[in-house]
């Protein structure tokens, strides 16, 4: 099946007083997919999402949703829902009133409204809290009210702007799974903004990595991980991120290039057998393995993983080696070279 994408952004740009917001955003999002917009703070993720939502209008480019050109349509005409980072719950309305607000505005009959409300609260596990005000809920419950409000109308497209950033780490993990399951069960299309690469990598079918208002790479999480387009992607994706070496540290790569290597592809070998000699700077015990930070004059972010608890003394000199097939080669401008 090769139908046209559900959501399409074509060369979209947005500037504020000439200052860059986002530029050249071209993106196809298939129906029923989970797309994550990932990038450091201020890179234009929210702007992209808000352009899609109709909360901002683009200076250039076109936006299509369900083959309809919505570039200049009002937010309400785009048939989508949104979960805000702050949740944006109406503080004076109860949980139930918050959730059905949109249905009421769109004059859905009372009976249908009640059914939909019940279902949305059931899915999000909020039954019994109908009459509470947002101020009387915990952070996690508020988050779920925002989710319930987003799914109650049954819109096929749901936008989420860092919906988990106000939750503690444990809850975040649980809700992450809930959202993913929700998206699958309902078959909706989700565009999800996050600055947390673990979140993006674990939830999304497609990750869109952005920097300074431009898209750096679009692809499945494993693509970004194993075939980063450039050194920015290499350093942003993965924990620990990819280490970058200056090409002249190794033989046979020529001048000016940059070599990338992931921690799991590096082995520690007896002194004298390695391709590089490094100094241990820190040992971080992660549970199943220990992350050893290494320092080398021609490298940044170098580290190696050792199974179990295997702390190494700071200042130790060790030799490391790796296979050529695990190396990523980038040109002078940081762009990936074929292979």
């Amino acid at each position, binding site marked *: 099946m090769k139908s046209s994408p559900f959501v399409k952004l074509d060369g979209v740009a947005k500037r504020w007083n000439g200052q860059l917001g986002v530029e050249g955003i071209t993106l196809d999002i298939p129906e029923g997919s989970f797309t994550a917009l990932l990038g450091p703070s201020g890179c234009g993720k929210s702007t992209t999402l808000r352009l899609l*939502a*109709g*909360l901002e209008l683009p200076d250039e480019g076109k936006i299509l949703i369900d083959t309809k050109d919505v570039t200049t349509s*009002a*937010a*309400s005409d785009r048939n*989508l*829902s*949104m979960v*805000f980072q*702050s949740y*944006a719950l*109406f*503080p*004076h309305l109860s949980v139930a009133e918050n959730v059905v*607000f*949109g249905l009421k*505005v*769109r004059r859905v009959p009372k009976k249908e409204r009640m059914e939909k409300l019940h279902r949305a609260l059931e899915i999000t596990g909020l039954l019994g809290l109908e009459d509470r*005000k947002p*101020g009387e809920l915990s952070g996690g419950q508020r988050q779920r009210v925002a989710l319930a*409000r987003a799914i109650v*109308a049954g819109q096929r497209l749901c936008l989420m702007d860092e919906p988990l950033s106000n939750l503690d780490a444990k809850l975040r993990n649980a809700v992450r799974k809930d959202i993913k399951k929700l998206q699958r069960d309902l078959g909706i299309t989700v565009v999800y903004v996050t600055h947390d690469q673990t979140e993006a990598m674990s939830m999304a079918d497609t990750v869109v990595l952005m920097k300074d208002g431009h898209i750096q790479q679009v692809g499945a999480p494993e693509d970004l991980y194993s075939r980063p387009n450039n050194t920015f992607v290499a350093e942003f994706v993965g924990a620990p991120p990819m280490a970058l070496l200056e090409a002249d540290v190794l033989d046979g790569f020529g001048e000016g290039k940059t070599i990338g290597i992931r921690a799991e592809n590096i082995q520690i070998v007896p002194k004298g057998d390695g391709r590089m000699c490094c100094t241990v700077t820190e040992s971080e015990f992660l549970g199943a393995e220990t992350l050893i930070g290494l320092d080398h004059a021609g490298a940044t972010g170098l580290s190696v993983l050792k199974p179990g608890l295997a702390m190494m003394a700071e200042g130790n000199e060790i030799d490391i080696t790796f296979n050529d097939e695990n190396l990523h080669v980038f040109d002078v401008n940081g762009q990936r070279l074929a292979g």
Partner: protein
Amino acid sequence: MSAHANLERRRQAIYGWLLLSPAAVLLTLFAFYPSIATLWSSMFSRGTRRKPTEFVGTENYAELFADPTFWLVVKNNLLYAGVTIPVSIFIALSMALWANGKIRARGFVRTAYFTPTVLPMIAAANLWLFFYTPGLGVLDQIGSLFGLPSVNWLGQPETALWAIIIVTIWKEAGFFMIFYLAALQTIPEDLKEAADIEGASRWTYTRRIVLPLLMPTTLFIAVNAMINSVKLIDHLFILTKGGPSDASKLILYYIWEMAFAFFDAPSAAAMTIMVIAVLGIVAAVQFFYLDKRTHYQ
């Protein structure tokens, strides 16, 4: 354990009373005591050289109820309150919603609205005198451009009170607008965006989200407007002096007249007590009834 908790509680109580006492002393000295004294003096007759003051109970009140001017003044004040309170609140709210929007020259608009508040009431009254004066006044000048006859706005019973009402609204609305503007600033921008996405029109958003969130402010303003409708009479001294034939006379002005023009202190005291009672009851109703239906953030 419990002794310790008791001590702590007593400490808290003493601390609380200490914090309260300066306000309590001042209030007693300047509010409670004068009120009681007024109540007391309202129950004595007016002393003359031949007839000394004596206790007359509610006679002063009975006399007032029999006084047609009193009833006219009450009627005037009710009309005055009934128009100035809702109209100034409505105008303040509309102006605030507008000035809070994304309009050009927002700073200028806000300042312009606020200017009347900065002016002392006496100065404002003088300004309006310049509008209302027959023949020379701005209103008449404009009217004459269209061939309308000269109107003595302040000098005829049918229009005098309304002229006063307009000055009050003009004066109050800008002041109340500042409170609404401050309250509007506290409503997060994303509520509007959430409502937008849900398909709410601007009007629905205003009615279902903004107005309820402004309720605490509205309540506060309503109480203030009500108090002002009794208190704010400075402009009467400049504009009409209560005339013509008491058409624009308000209660406080009448009390002032009683006390300092007719030297009938007991009647003034009796009227003051009634005003305090009515204001107290209305404020209590507003706070206790509306409070329950108001969402505080």
